[in-house]
């Protein structure tokens, strides 16, 4: 008996679960991370303080603790009706956003200050300067580390299996518990699924990097 063909539907569901979890958390992390990076370089002190606090808090909290805080804490605080999938997206997205923020910020710092000064000198506001001039140039430096962070995120999604989310990690646990399969073979198939996802991410980022390299 073959563990993959016997349980193909379950594998497929787990694979799709991991892909969805990764994609949605990545989207949230990219949006939040870029926004908070903007806060950290903003002329408004309150935003800078918020940005620093966000990064310090989320970057230094173990992901499992963050999952606990989100899946147990938020409902206890009155956030009802969110299923465990969306809570997992929230936890993974916020966690990863702290790292994305720092990658984006290092990209921002790599852009010569004269670029922002020139933008300000023609009357562009802080937001225009950031979105039109600084971030597009920062992306060249930020994209490789952001790629690595999203690969780490894809693997971190496995933690969600401990919080009632169907993804590859939960498939592995279910099959390990079912009698009769060689756990090494299960492990191999699961690993292969992760490799497909992570290779796709690095491929996408290599493509992005090459496109940005020619565009000037």
């Amino acid at each position, binding site marked *: 008996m073959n563990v993959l063909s016997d349980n193909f539907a379950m594998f497929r569901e787990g694979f799709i679960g991991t892909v969805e979890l990764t994609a949605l958390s990545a989207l949230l992390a990219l949006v939040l991370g870029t926004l908070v990076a903007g806060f950290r370089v903003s002329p408004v002190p309150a935003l800078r303080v918020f940005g620093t606090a966000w990064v310090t808090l989320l970057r230094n909290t173990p992901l499992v603790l963050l999952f606990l805080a989100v899946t147990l804490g938020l409902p206890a605080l009155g956030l009802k009706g969110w299923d465990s999938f969306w809570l997992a997206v929230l936890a993974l997205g916020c966690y990863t956003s702290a790292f994305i923020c720092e990658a984006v910020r290092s990209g921002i710092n790599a852009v010569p200050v004269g670029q922002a000064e020139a933008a300000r000198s*023609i009357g562009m506001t802080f937001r225009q300067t950031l979105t*039109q001039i600084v971030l597009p140039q920062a992306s060249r430096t930020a994209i490789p580390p952001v790629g690595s962070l999203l690969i780490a995120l894809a693997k971190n999604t496995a933690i969600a299996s401990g919080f009632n989310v169907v993804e590859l990690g939960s498939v592995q646990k279910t099959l390990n518990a079912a009698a009769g399969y060689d756990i090494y073979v299960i492990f191999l198939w699961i690993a292969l699924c992760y490799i497909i996802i992570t290779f796709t991410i690095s491929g996408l980022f290599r493509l992005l990097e090459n496109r940005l390299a020619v565009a000037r």
Partner: protein
Amino acid sequence: MSDHLQPPGIPPHQAGGSRPGTDALVVLDKVNKHFGALHVLQDIDLTIARGEVVVVIGPSGSGKSTLCRTINRLETTDSGSITIDGRPLPQEGKELARLRADVGMVFQSFNLFAHKTVLENVTLGQVKVRKKGREEAESTARTLLDRVGVGAQADKYPAQLSGGQQQRVAIARALAMEPKLMLFDEPTSALDPEMINEVLEVMQQLARDGMTMVVVTHEMGFARSAANRVVFMADGRIVEEAQPEQFFSDPRSDRAKDFLSKILHH
């Protein structure tokens, strides 16, 4: 280069004239600034009339760049007041951005937007700040690029241009905002000698067209032919102000004599 450099629609303040008007466009009153313990600007009083061309000259580290940058508040000041066209410089925010759009700035290192083409460099501010339509902005940009002599480079990226070409694009980018005043911080000192003149010519034309200009430069030829006034700075103070001819042939202060003897003997 007989055509004037003013953006279309804005008549020169003083068509063809070299005599500045008498009304003040920029007034600095007792401006002070520190960088830590260093007192870079000390009680600077300076009034620039509409249409006037002021050349700022002085030894390295005397505060010329800082003075230039405080006028559009790229540097903050510690005390004193700066008014432009009768209005005090606003603090940070939208107000300040609006004022900066009226004050063009040309940097020593050009600072063209590296990820945008030459044409985009000159249209961006018109579209995002002046809220002009794309077509109108592009036609203004092309007119200005032709006037500074780089019309053929419109679709290139800054890195593909020579320094002199980049600096002329930077001037066009500033002019596209239809500024009341142009600040130049050593616009030719990062250029190879053969490119200096092409930039100076553009600036000279601009001066003839009546643009109000503050120019930090050591190009005495430019100061002699285009400036109404030379302001000599040393150690954060304005030491001497004079007509160019008088300043270069017969400076009053010892500080200026010393400085001129050094740069003239090269």
